[in-house]
């Protein structure tokens, strides 16, 4: 439907061989704009209520899973060059329950030169490794626990991002972002100035012909205002927990590393990918305990973190298997005297999970996946999970990031 008819002016030239001068098209010229639709969904068998958060992370988001048959988010993507200076990208998520949300809607420069790339609008932050990847490019059905608890799966931002690529043989990229603070842990509010900032450095290279790697360090900073969390367990054992509110600074550091190996550097036949990421967040401010009842405010500081390590092995064309280990550390909170008897400061439990994945891609545009997980993210509530998932893409199929 978006097919572009290529008008050829043919002329007979050398050796009687006809040469055809087509209007040279790049990838997206055939579809202007490039239009794509991702259909995904599946089935989840869980032994526990997915609404129960990881132990010690009741004040964090819990994206969880949907039980039984479920329609995942269908994702509609539109992208095109706007003019020789700008390119536009929009990704709309069609929620299963109805309604459209804007996942990405950004403009990026294409001709700044000198290694500079400016992006503005709504985008996934460039911090870490997985954060920028769309759900259909994930190697597992779900994000690692550390992404779920610390970034609500993915940090999205309304703002701008400037990246600079150093003119070196090795890939070295420095980036900075400022924005509204829309995504957790930011606070979405109408206010002048920047609500959240990100800095990151990525470096990468090849090792011989068969191996490649990328490593990164990220920093995220925001000020949280009236961050309310419900159903937080307390020392008094209040049934159903209490609602707390936090005001203060949030600072997260992260490290990521990816290493890939493919014989002859040809990932079509087989490939090994190892990756690991670590995040650590320090929050420092005031916590108001039980906003609906006691309403006691005092100082609160905690450092939480987590990591995952995973390996993906494509053992033959189209077939991949993967193993992931996840772990969270809820930390030990420093609690002001007024709340020492109310707020739990030490959960003394490290949520963790092991997941095993197998997927088959009949073509570049389709993928079928099965995943098993042994989830010990909730103390005393072991959950053996089983997932089936499909992910199909129609229309223009853009390039995937490394």
């Amino acid at each position: 439907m978006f097919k572009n008819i290529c008008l050829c002016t043919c002329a007979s030239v050398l050796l009687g061989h006809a040469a055809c001068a087509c209007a040279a098209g790049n990838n997206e010229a055939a579809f202007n704009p490039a239009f794509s639709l991702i259909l995904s969904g599946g089935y989840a068998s869980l032994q526990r209520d997915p609404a129960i958060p990881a132990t010690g992370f009741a004040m964090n988001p819990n994206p969880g899973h949907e039980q039984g048959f479920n329609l995942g988010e269908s994702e509609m993507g539109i992208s095109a060059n706007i003019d020789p200076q700008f390119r536009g990208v929009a990704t709309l998520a069609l929620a299963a329950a109805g309604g459209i949300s804007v996942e990405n809607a950004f403009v990026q420069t294409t001709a700044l030169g000198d290694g500079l790339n400016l992006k503005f609008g709504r985008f996934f932050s460039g911090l870490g490794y997985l954060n920028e990847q769309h759900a259909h490019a994930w190697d597992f059905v779900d994000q690692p626990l550390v992404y779920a608890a610390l970034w609500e799966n993915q940090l999205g931002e309304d703002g701008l991002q400037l990246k600079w690529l150093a003119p070196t043989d090795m890939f070295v990229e420095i980036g900075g972002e400022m924005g509204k603070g829309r995504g957790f842990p930011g606070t979405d509010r109408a206010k002048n100035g920047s609500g959240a900032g990100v800095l990151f450095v990525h470096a990468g290279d090849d090792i011989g012909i068969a191996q490649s790697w990328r490593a990164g360090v990220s920093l995220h900073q925001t000020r949280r205002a009236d961050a309310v969390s419900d159903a937080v367990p307390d020392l008094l054992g209040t049934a159903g927990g209490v609602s707390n509110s936090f005001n203060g600074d949030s600072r997260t550091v992260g490290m990521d590393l990816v290493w890939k190996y493919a014989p002859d550097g040809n990932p079509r036949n087989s490939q090994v990918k190892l990756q690991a990421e670590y995040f650590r967040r320090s929050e420092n401010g005031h916590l108001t305990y039980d906003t609906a009842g006691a309403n006691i405010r005092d100082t609160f500081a905690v450092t939480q973190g987590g990591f995952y390590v995973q390996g993906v092995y494509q053992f033959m064309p189209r077939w991949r298997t993967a193993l992931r280990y996840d772990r969270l550390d809820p930390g030990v909170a420093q609690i002001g005297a007024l709340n020492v008897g109310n707020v739990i400061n030490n959960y003394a439990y490290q949520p963790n999970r092991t997941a095993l994945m197998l997927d088959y891609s009949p073509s570049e545009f389709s993928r079928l996946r099965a995943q098993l997980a042994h989830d010990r993210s909730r103390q005393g509530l072991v959950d053996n999970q089983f997932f089936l998932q499909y992910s199909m893409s129609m229309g223009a199929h853009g390039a995937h990031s490394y």
Partner: protein
Amino acid sequence: MKNVIAILSLLLLSSTAHAALSVFACEPEWAALTQELAGDKATVYTATTALQDPHRIEARPSLIAKARRTDLVVCTGAELEVAWLPLVLRESGNGKVQPGSNGYFEAASVVHMLEVPTQLDRGEGDVHAQGNPHIQTDPRNFLPVAEALAKRLMQLDPANAAAYKQRLAAFTGQWRTAIAKWEKQAAPLKGMPVVVQHKGFPYLSSWLGLKEVTTLEPKPGMEPSAAHLSLVLNTLQQYPAKMVVRAAYQDGRPSAWIAQRANIAAVELPYTVGGSAEATDLYGLFDDTVARLLKGLQ
């Protein structure tokens, strides 16, 4: 202080004046052609090797870093590199080599394309809207590409225009002679029935008059399944072929399976420069391609 600045700027100016053109070639054949046309006037980086499937390269950090500092990108185009090149160029932050600018050259744009689909339907597999992109298997295609590429080099580096012009003339002459030689050698191959692993040889077949009986991949880009290979075997009983042909980067097992059961030769072609020990340059590529096909005929 002023002297220091003057000396530094002189050094900078002189180094840019003498700096060779930096070229990023997507595939080894275009790297070899650029080197033929530019000689020492260009330093050429090759993004892929003959043992890599150019459809399935990842946008690795190293490629982005190389594209950042390049003056000219020389690629096949016709969506062959669609899975990685657009991202590499975008992330490079190099305004000189974006599609549509002078620093971006697509070989397929000056070649008569074969297998241009009349309808775009992914049910037909990984088809390319602009036609089959594997244009480098017909040596005649290098003539219009060389002419257009030399023109581009002259545009980007007018100081050396005369050298490029001279090298183009020399290459064109030698290449025509070589084509005549290969065509003479390959005369026995005319009308020869072959099986191909991937639809990657229409230009070679059209040049030498090979008859493609069937394809091991059920649809372009899809792996040959056991069930499909049995169908291929049935087809071969009805319409026997002389050999099964594949590119060096492709998995050798499906070809070997068919060759053994149909009792025909399995021929691995270099496909591009570096695809075999003999294919060290463009001339070696076609010397070896023709030699291997003739050997398969025996």
